[in-house]
Each structure stands twice: as structure tokens, then as C-alpha cells.
């Protein structure tokens, strides 16, 4: 289309010019000619019609090369030599679920202390070494395991693995470091109580599972629990969890499988014993009695009072599916349609139609042995009740299923997410580390893409019962004095007012 348009554009300019110049120059000699410009059709609008969507490009998911160290630790390697960078992810099962009762945060603090000196290096020397080499290093704790992640320029891999080997095998457990890091953790947890999303998520863990359940607290712990964590707790967690038994390593970047195997073996292979321990992942427990709805309310609602808050934090928890469940793709697709993208139902209604919020989202969390679905938004205080009514209506509506167009959108969003995860060595390593740690095979990413593409609207509809509010927990953080009556109007008459922790 562009070539004819260019000709017309230039032609019009030229015709106008030619028509005018002779008319002036020749006025005394002959009659003015019929203006040619009058018969030139208007130029077509080059933007009049949206272009046709092109043909889909194939996305071939990478498949890791699988090897094993001499101590039995499984290693997946994904070569990505685009830039001279490497990411390493080391996972061990365990996690905050193993925190002793009343000592919530023990696993988190233990993992944090791994970065506070190891081998011959005290905390200061360790930090100086890691940062001088330009290594991005962290140890993260979740409910079911611990994750050590290191990213670096390729030429620092050997040094990084040396440090990681010492962190795993020779942590220092300095009393001074323990006291300082515990104090910093308590400070961060205290600050989190003032942050609406953090406060809501903490309360959701507590009230969804029950305070005595092993998943009933955030991995970071609680102010009270962290205050009770002892040196013995942190050492005990490390000794139990950081063994080669059950550990997995994932490497991505400018490296071959052979190079990775050789580099890892001397640090995390032969020196790291596969000490036999009891299963580090305990069997799932049922939720505590009384954590669901009560007889006089359609669902349980707890409120953290935040006087003068400009918005009300909505945080709704629904029963989901555990990782590996065959129906998980369908639940994911329905959840994307509900709140997983900008044009999703919740965002379209609460933000783009009503203007109640800056955004509304829904997400699936599939974890070992259990799963949840979470809906969240931050709503202007004075429309809290109206927004709740709209939200409940949309949750009812989604149970009728989604449209083919919504399914196509969900499939496209899922695919694009996976493509973008493959951009960086960190993204590749963490994606496949999750698969490996959960016991999936190296082809699982491709399998997940295939499963998502094969979904039908009927399959999705079958999972949308998850959004039945009768099974939900609603956590709100807002100004009680201003929103309570509004919530009553929305049909929520029983509200438990709770403290942030």
C-alpha cells in the first residue's frame, strides 16, 4: 500500500504546483485552464484499516541437558551464549514449613546468615569478596524450600562456586551476625505491618491455614516468632536441610553442560555428602477447622484497621490446585481471564469502567501439596462497599465460564510470559529450577505450553468453581470507621477486626 500512496502524495503536490504557476504566468495570454486539482481524488488514509495479524512464529522451549554429580545431585544446564553471563540456582527442599512452633522465621534467618561469612571469610570479608567480583548473590526461603541464586559474568563462575561451596559446607554462625540480622529482620517485619499488601498477605497466611498450621505464617516469619529464634534454630535448619540429598542445581548462560559439570563437581559434588535424612518435605496437612466460612456469614472476613487510609486493601484467598495437577492449566487460563491482564474482567470493571482503583489482579499459586488463588486490589476508601459488590458479582459471573476470545487471550499471555522468561540467564535458570525442584522432567515447559494451547472453554469452566466465595477468605486493610457500614451494605455483616500480626 505504501508505494501507491507515496505516488499520490507527491502527485498532488506536483499537480497543485503546476496548476497554479501557469495560471499566474499565462493569465494575459490565454484563459485559465480548468483546475486539475478538482479531479484528483483525496489520498487514501494509510491508517484506515488495521493490518492483518501475521502468521504465528513457533516458540521452541529450550530443554535442559541433564547430568548428575557424584553425590547424586541432579544438574540441569541450559546453554545461552548470547552474553558472557551465567546464573546458578541451587535448591534444597525444606523451607519455612519446618519452623519450630513459636519460632517463625527460623529458616529465613538461617538462610540469611549463609550470606554473612563462610569458610575463612567473616561477614565483612565475604561481602567485600562477593561484591568485588560483581556477583549477584542471594539466598531466598519459601514455605517449602531454600534457594541459593548467583548471577555473574562468566569469568567469575569459579570464584562464585567456591564461595557457594563454603556457604553450604562451612557457614560461620557468628553470634554477632546472628543478633544483628535477627534485629534487622524484626525491623523489616515491623515495617511490613504498615504496608497494606504485606500486612494483608501475612494475615491471609494466618487465617487461611490457621495459626498452628505449618503454612500458617509467611516465610519471613513474624515479629514475635523471629524474636524467639535462637542460634540453635538456625544451625538446626541448616544441618537438616542443606544436604545433597534432594538438592538440585540449575545452570543457565554462556556455558556448556560439560563446563558446568566440571565446575560444580569440585565444589558441590564430591565434597558435599548426600547425608541420608528424613523426608525434608512433610506431608500436606488439612487446613485448621474454622478457617473457612462461619454459619452466619457467606465467607470469612477479617479486617486490619488502618485509620485514615486513603484506600482499602482487598486480598481474597480461594482454594486452588497443587503443582502438577492436570487441571492447573485450566485454572490458570480462567484466572488470567478474571484478573491476569490489563483487559481482564476485574481490571476492566473496577479500574477502566468504574475508576475505583489503580488496578485489580488475580493470580494462581500452585505449590507442593496445595494451591490457592488470590484476588487483590486497592480500592478508594469511599467506594469500598460498591467495589465489593461489583467484585462479588464478577466472581459469580466467572463461574459460568469464559469466552473463546478470553481463552485465546489467556493462552497468548501465558506463551508470552514464557518467552520473556527466556530472555535472561536468570529467568531461564529460575524457570527450570522451579521445574526441577518440583520433580518435573526437563521437557515440562514445552509440555505446559502444549497443555495450555490444547485447553477448551469447557475445561476452563470446570475449574471456575474455585471462585465460589463460600470457600473464600477475605482480608481487608482499611479505615474501619469509614468502611464498615459500606461493607454491611454489600452483604458483609460479620467482620472480625484483627491486629496486623
Amino acid at each position, binding site marked *: 500500500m505504501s508505494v501507491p500512496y507515496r505516488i499520490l502524495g507527491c502527485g498532488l*503536490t506536483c499537480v497543485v504546483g503546476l496548476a497554479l504557476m501557469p495560471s499566474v504566468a499565462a493569465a494575459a495570454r490565454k484563459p485559465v485552464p480548468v483546475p486539475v486539482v478538482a479531479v484528483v481524488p483525496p489520498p487514501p488514509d494509510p491508517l484506515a484499516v488495521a493490518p492483518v495479524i501475521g502468521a504465528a512464529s513457533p516458540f521452541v522451549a529450550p530443554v535442559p541437558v541433564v547430568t548428575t554429580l557424584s553425590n547424586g545431585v541432579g544438574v540441569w544446564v541450559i546453554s545461552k551464549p548470547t*552474553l*558472557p553471563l551465567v546464573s546458578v540456582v541451587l535448591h534444597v527442599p525444606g523451607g519455612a514449613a519446618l519452623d519450630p512452633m513459636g519460632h517463625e522465621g527460623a529458616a529465613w534467618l538461617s538462610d540469611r546468615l549463609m550470606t554473612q561469612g563462610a569458610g575463612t571469610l567473616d561477614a565483612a570479608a565475604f*561481602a567485600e569478596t562477593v561484591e568485588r567480583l560483581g556477583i549477584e548473590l542471594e539466598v531466598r526461603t519459601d514455605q517449602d524450600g531454600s534457594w541459593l541464586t548467583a548471577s555473574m559474568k562468566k569469568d567469575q563462575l569459579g570464584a562464585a562456586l567456591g564461595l557457594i561451596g563454603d556457604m553450604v559446607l562451612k557457614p560461620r554462625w557468628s553470634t554477632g551476625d546472628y543478633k544483628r540480622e535477627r*534485629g534487622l529482620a524484626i525491623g523489616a517485619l515491623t515495617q511490613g505491618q504498615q504496608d497494606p499488601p504485606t500486612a494483608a498477605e501475612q494475615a491471609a497466611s494466618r487465617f487461611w491455614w490457621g495459626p498452628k498450621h505449618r503454612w500458617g505464617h509467611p516465610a519471613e516469619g513474624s515479629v514475635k516468632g523471629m524474636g524467639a529464634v535462637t542460634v540453635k534454630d538456625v544451625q538446626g535448619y541448616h544441618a537438616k536441610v542443606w544436604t545433597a540429598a534432594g538438592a538440585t542445581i540449575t545452570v543457565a548462560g554462556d556455558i556448556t553442560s560439560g563446563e558446568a559439570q566440571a565446575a560444580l563437581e569440585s565444589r558441590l559434588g564430591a565434597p558435599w555428602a548426600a547425608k541420608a535424612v528424613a523426608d525434608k518435605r512433610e506431608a500436606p496437612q488439612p487446613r485448621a477447622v474454622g478457617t473457612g466460612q462461619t454459619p452466619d456469614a457467606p465467607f470469612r472476613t477479617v479486617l486490619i484497621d488502618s485509620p485514615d487510609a486513603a484506600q482499602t486493601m482487598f486480598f481474597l484467598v480461594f482454594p486452588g490446585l497443587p503443582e502438577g495437577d492436570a487441571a492447573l492449566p485450566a485454572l490458570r487460563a480462567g484466572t488470567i481471564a478474571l484478573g491476569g491482564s490489563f*483487559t481482564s474482567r476485574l481490571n476492566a470493571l473496577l479500574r477502566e469502567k468504574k475508576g475505583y482503583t489503580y488496578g485489580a489482579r488475580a493470580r494462581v499459586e500452585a505449590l507442593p501439596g496445595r494451591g490457592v488463588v488470590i484476588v487483590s486490589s486497592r480500592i478508594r476508601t469511599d467506594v469500598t462497599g460498591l467495589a465489593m459488590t461489583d467484585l462479588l458479582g464478577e466472581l459469580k459471573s466467572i463461574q459460568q465460564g469464559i469466552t473463546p476470545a478470553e481463552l485465546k487471550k489467556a493462552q497468548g499471555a501465558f506463551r508470552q510470559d514464557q518467552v520473556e522468561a527466556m530472555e535472561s540467564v536468570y529467568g531461564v535458570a529460575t524457570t527450570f529450577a522451579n521445574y526441577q525442584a518440583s520433580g518435573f522432567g526437563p521437557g515440562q515447559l514445552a509440555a505446559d505450553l502444549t497443555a495450555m494451547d490444547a485447553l477448551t472453554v469447557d475445561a476452563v469452566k470446570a475449574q471456575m468453581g474455585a471462585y465460589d466465595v463460600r470457600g473464600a477468605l477475605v482480608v481487608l486493610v482499611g479505615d474501619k470507621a469509614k468502611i464498615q457500614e459500606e461493607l454491611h451494605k454489600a452483604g458483609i455483616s460479620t467482620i472480625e477486626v484483627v491486629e496486623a500480626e
Partner: protein
Amino acid sequence: MPFLPAVPLLIPSVALLRLIGAASAAEIPFERYELGNGLQVVLVQDHSLPQVVVDTWYRVGSGNEQAGRSGFAHLFEHLMFMGTHRLPGSGIDNLMEANGGWNNAWTMEDATNYYDVGPPALLSNLLWIEADRMQQLGQAMTTEKLDLQRDVVKNERRQSYEDEPYAIGQLEVPLLMYPKGHPYDHTVIGTHEDLTAASVEDVKAFFATWYVPNNASLVVAGDFDPALVKPLIEQYFGTIEKKPLPALPVPAGVDRAQTARLTLTDDVDYPQINLYFHTPSSFAPGDAEVQLAGSLLADGESSRLYKKLVIGGLAQDVSAYQMPTMYGSLFVISATAADGGTVAAMESAIAAELLDLERNPPSGSEMERVHNQFDYGFLDNLQSLQNRAVQLNQYWAYTGSPDYLAKDLARFQDATPEAIRDATARWLRPELAGVVVIEPRPKGPPAPPAASPVGGAK
């Protein structure tokens, strides 16, 4: 004049950027040219994954707002997604998401950036969408659209500043640091009053003035064939009318010696101190040295301020970084007190570290640290296709050319210890800091006024 020459004014050139130092293996080839209407075009091919990015950068931000219209550039950014006559309603988002794509945008003091991401099959539509709204968004503006996004932006303000612990201090920084009339004398998010005052006429005038091709740069990156894309760009964007641009702002002078101090209260448990310094403009001499000083001071647990404040038990966190902008930047040092810690103790310790860095250049080990951290961070950032696109647009906006990656890297790698010391001595002297302190709001009795200025706020 509705019709413009179809032939680009500048001959397309191919520039090959090579990262130096540890990242010498990396290359980012790109092709650059300019349409007849002044639109800058940069094409970056990357066939490693089936995706494309279209990144459009307009050189207009909150610094170009009229008095009484704070927050308008950002509000306008929201309105750019509200549809045109050709693609009404939520058509932009619907079209992209229906085909596996997504988008977003952000506004800062000097610029507004729109980015679209998706599979290659969507590329022609992404270009069409951007051209369509560049050409005619203003015509389709209505009060209903404006009112809706006004509410959304006010919600964004509540969420990001009013209910966010410690964030109310950020709302006061422009007034504290800039004289009235300076382009940066107000926040990007704006005030509720100014947002309420915005009219449809404002929107149309703003669009007509700033959203013109000669004020924009388009980066197309990813898995595409330039032979197919270049004609499309010409077809879609080539006829959009070029317009004269307003003169650039002439900022009022900033008196660095006139400092101010402000104390606010918030629903927090620990006091926080924030020190703001006037520093060189983005990409100006001294900018890189000040950024490296920030890394020396607070990037990582072996940094000077982390050791002094956090390891030393005065604070539970500390940060120090440059916020680069066109008409002079701000450098901020922020620390939150440890349990029982005080603002005075943190402030004294920060001042001592700054004075030490003013007098003594960083050691060889420290230089090795900041250079290696910078190298890694630079490479890490470039892994993202979207980041690469934004980076090239940013170079164009601030240096006049996207061909600046090697120079950018060099200015950091060539910075000497003495230059960092001298930059600290010139720009980060403690007595030149504007200070914002956030104190915990007393619990129990009625809250005191939200802001209680101490000293002479500008």
C-alpha cells in the same frame, strides 16, 4: 501541510555498538534513520526469541506542564490508551492482548515512554496503533475519558504515595529543592487539585503541541525483517504532520547553598532521613562520577554507608543513588533508623562518610568493586529486549543520538578514584543537602498536622 516527502531526510546508517571491557563479546547492531517529518527510527534485530518490542519515546514530561496543571503529562499518558476514532474504547489493549501482546507506559520529568511487547505476528498492528494515536488521539478525547482516568490517576497517587509508608516525603521534595517556576518544582504525579482542574481542552492542546513526530523516537526491536517493516513505518508514520515545537524551558537558577529542612509524620514505626543534593544533569560531566559515588556509598553490604549505619547498628537500611534528569539531577541518600536509632545519629554518620570521600579517593579494591558491579549490571540490563529499546531511546533523548552505548560505558569505566572524590567534594557536601525527615506519628491522641516544616522550605 499534509503531505511530506516519502524519502527519509537522513540516509539510513548502520551503527555497530560494541561493549567494551569484560563485555567485549556483546554487540548490539542497529539501524537508524529519520522520516521526513522528523520521527527518529531505530531498528534492532534480535532473532533469538519470537518476540518484538515497539518503544515510543516522546520528549515531554512533567517539566513541560503549565502552572496549575501538575500531574498532567502523566494523566495524559493514561489517556493515550483510551482509544481513537479508528480504534475506539479499549481497542488498543484489546487488540494487543487478543494476540498475545501487552503494553505499558511511564512518565518522568523529561519524557514519556510507551512500550508494546508481543509476538512478531503482532508487529504491524503495534506500529499501526502507535501511528494512529500519534496522529489523532486528541480528536477523540472526551470528558468521560478524562474523568475516568483522572480517577485512576488519583488512585495511583493514593496507592503509591498516600498509603505507602514513608512515601509522603517524596511529594514534598520538588518544593523543597526547586524554586517556583523551575520545570521540576512539582511532582510527576501532581496534586489532587491540579488533576481535578485538567480539562479536555488542556488534553487537546497538550497533544497538539507535544505529540508530534518531530518530538518522538521509535525503536523497533526483536524478531522482524527490516525490509518489511521499514515500508510499514513509512506508510503509517510518514504522513503525520510535523509541527514547530515550543522553545525548551529555561530553568530558573538553583541556589545550592540555600538548603531547607522538612519534618513530616507518617504511620511508621521508625524515623527516616532523606538527604537530597543538586547534581549534574543526566549524561553531563560529573553524572557518572556521582553515580559511582552512590555505588561506593550504599550499593551492597561492603559499601561505606551500609557498614557504618547498618552494621554499625544505627539504621536498618540505607540507599544512595542519582536520579538523573535533563535540567540538573538530584542525588538522594536515605536511611531508616534501627530500633532505638535516631535521625541525628544517622545524619552525623552520613556526613562523616561524605567528608571522608571528599578528602580521600576510593581504594583500588573499592574501584574494582564498583566497576565489576557496574559491568554486571550493564550487561544484565541489556538481556531484556525491552530494556535495550528503552536504552536507545533514552540515549536519543538525552544525547541526541542512540549511538551512545560505548560512550556511556566508557564514562563509567574511565572514571578515576580522584574524579569520584572530586565529584563528591563538589556535589555531595553535607551542608548542601535538602533534608526530609519522616517521624513516626504519635499513637493515641488526634494526629498533628500532616506536615510541619522546619526551616525555610522553598
